[in-house]
């Protein structure tokens, strides 16, 4: 009797758990790989969905997959998404949609009205990457990348690449939803554009769009992104480069490749000013030396010093710029609220001073390091 009751209980629970799921064969859906969200001049939401469609060709009797791009317009995102389905053979499925791209125009107009449906609907992934495209949606979806058949899959791979960790922010939709409500509501989203300067057109990640209160207020260029990442870094930097002057020649350079970086943050608020102390430890290796190098302990120390000075100068310059604009990219406001709950500060970065303690360590074999 108990067994029967238990089985019945399991069945009822499972029926409830299934919720919105329905049996659908994998070949009877159209998978969206990327959702591009734009706004038109009448403030209507325009979406482009890059999709994968599998079918059996009756002409040559083979199974095939093809890329389709759908476009729809609506007053709300839900409206536009429903509109998309009116074009498709099967229901468009967003479970494989790993990238949501907002156009620069949409980002500058505000993302607040565009994200609710993505958060509310169970089919959309919270772990998807988000980005801001510096151009129109039409331009992005018409670009056929040579590295992959699908822009969405290409961007997903690019945005989680360790190799690009200094010039991108590994930013997913769920992180965006969290940080948009804390501190000064500042988010950093990767910006990208289509580079047509080379022999082939390629999509390129190009700096970071700063979103405050869901509106794009500033854009860091790629070099600024490196310094911002070093300042903000929470152990994510696994690759990157710092270029310093040669120790012996004025017009030559030495490239140091970042192997590991860790930044710890301490904060002190005296009631009037905030002292932001960043302790930055970076392990590098010598990657490229122009015109050779006099290998000695002294040279290595000099190179380390040059790198430390460069990082200090650049990070302080960036901090000064952000402070002047009042954009709290480093989440100082959030940290102050946590450490000094009673403090009533309007914009923490405005009253902050940066003190950085930078330690660059050149790694190498012990033979090189200690062989004078």
């Amino acid at each position, binding site marked *: 009797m108990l067994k029967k009751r*238990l089985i019945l209980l399991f069945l009822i629970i499972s029926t409830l758990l299934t919720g919105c799921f329905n049996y659908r064969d994998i070949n009877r859906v159209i998978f969206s790989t990327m959702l591009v969200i734009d706004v038109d001049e009448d403030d209507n939401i325009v979406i482009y969905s890059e999709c994968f469609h599998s079918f059996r060709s009756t002409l040559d009797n083979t199974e095939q997959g093809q890329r389709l791009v759908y476009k729809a317009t609506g007053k709300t995102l839900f409206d536009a998404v429903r509109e998309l389905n009116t074009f498709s053979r099967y229901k468009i499925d967003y479970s494989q949609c790993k990238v949501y791209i907002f156009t620069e125009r949409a980002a500058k107009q505000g993302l607040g009205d565009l994200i609710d449906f993505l958060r509310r609907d169970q089919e959309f992934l919270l772990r998807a990457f988000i980005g801001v495209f510096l151009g129109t949606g039409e331009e992005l979806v018409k670009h056929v990348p040579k590295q992959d058949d699908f822009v969405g899959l290409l961007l997903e791979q690019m945005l989680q690449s360790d190799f690009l960790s200094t010039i991108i922010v590994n930013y997913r939709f769920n992180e965006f939803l969290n940080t948009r409500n804390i501190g000064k509501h500042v988010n950093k989203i990767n910006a990208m554009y289509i580079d047509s300067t080379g022999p082939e057109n390629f999509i390129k990640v190009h700096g970071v769009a700063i979103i405050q209160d869901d509106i794009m207020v500033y854009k860091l260029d790629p070099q600024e992104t490196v310094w911002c990442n070093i300042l903000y870094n929470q152990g994510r930097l696994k690759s990157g480069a710092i270029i310093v002057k040669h120790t012996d020649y004025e017009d030559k350079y030495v490239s140091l490749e970042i192997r590991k970086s860790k930044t710890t943050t301490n904060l002190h608020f005296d009631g009037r000013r905030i002292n932001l102390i960043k302790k930055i430890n970076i392990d590098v290796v010598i990657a490229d030396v122009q015109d050779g190098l006099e290998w000695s302990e002294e040279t290595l120390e000099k190179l380390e010093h040059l790198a430390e000075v460069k990082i200090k100068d650049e990070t302080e310059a960036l901090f000064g710029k952000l402070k002047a604009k009042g954009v709290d990219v480093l989440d100082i406001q959030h940290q102050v609220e946590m450490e000094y709950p009673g403090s009533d500060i309007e914009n923490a970065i405005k009253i902050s001073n940066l003190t950085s303690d930078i330690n660059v360590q050149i790694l190498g074999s012990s033979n090189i390091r200690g062989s004078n």
Partner: protein
Amino acid sequence: MIKDILEKQYISNISIIKEKLKNTYDVKYREITTVSGLVCAIFIDNMVDTKILSETVLSPFIDAEILPADIDHIKSRILKTYVVDSVENIEDTILNILSGNVVLFFSFCDGILFCEVKGIKNRAIEQPLTETTIKGPREAFTEDLGINISLIRRRYKNSGLKIEEFRLGVHSQAGVALLFVEQHCPEKLITYVRTKIQMMQKRHYVFSINNIEEEIRCKGTFFSTTGVTERPDTISSLLSEGRLCVIINGSPFVMVVPYFFIDNFMTPDDYYNDKFTGSFDRILRCLAFIISIVLPGFYLALTTYHFKLLPPVLAFRVAVLRAGVPYNTVIEIFIMYFFFLILREAGIRLPTPIGQAVSIFGALILGDAAIGAGLTSEITVLIVALSSICTFLIPKLFNAIVVWTSIILGFTTFLGLPGFYVGFIMFISHLAGLTTCGYPYLYPLGTLTTFRFRDIFYRTKLKDISNNILHGDEK
């Protein structure tokens, strides 16, 4: 006067036997005249060794110049066979004749004797067909009860090894032996099996070990809670663990109880190879079991409900592969399963060389043709084939796996992964609810019992196993 009575009794007894065994052409009546009177030997042709019969039973009577008139003296002085005894009544007499013994009637003394001069042709001791090993012994049980017991005794030389004899089936009178080691086997287990066997004595016919298995095993399950083996070395080892064995005359398989779930994953080679190979193979079998039970249901859930859990490249690949299949995935899986079951049955029923060829070519041609015809996709063939091949690693669980895979598939079809979990939990609950002769079938897994010897998922040193096997379990 007494002589007349004995002669009348002699004639009467033979008439009764002839009446009872009429229309049986192989029953032979050999009457010889001795110095004291008539002696009639009744036996079944082809069941006795005629040479021994002549030399040890008939010749002594013919050659004797004086014959004693006392049955005990005949037993001790005349007959030269190694087993001679008196028969008390006509029923026993007939049973002895039908068992292959020679029964002697005398016209000059009171009493009936039987002599064992069996000459039944037995199959030689051959290699085990179902449990082959690489390094282990090559002996397997035969159909003869006596030979089988001797094979065990040869390995287990201990006075504690007890053998109880039963005759099952009112008509078949099949000889059954119950074997256990007195100092290791729990009394309640002996009583349980003994009672079950005694209950079968009133049945009309008992021919095979399966009759006894059906009586003892857990009802309402596809898992076998009794084990069978054709290897004497396995039985000897199990007896030393305190288990109990049942042998029936006419069957080369010996039943062993209690038989636990984990026993399905053990093979003799685990102990004949080194411990790393043995452990690796055993873990492989455990993984194969999980794959065969779980894989089809999991595949169905992922490709019909939970696309999110698939990497995009795989999802798109599967979608393309299935693009030309007109049926739902679940139908497709069941079609392929059905094909597989047909092929397996064909492979088993046909003679070994042809059966193997049918299985291999059938699988290749049928799989390819099914894909070409649009009945199925490559990925489904792969999943069903992998799941099916995994069952070959644990053939004793084949039926249970097929049934439970289908149940899990059924739940998954309607509910996706939650259904898969429900099916799987039901499967585990079912296993946990089974018993084997009163012991939990999952022992020692899923019980509060401490693992006394490390011989569950991996095989430790043989020294440790043999020294700790009964630690704390002795009576």
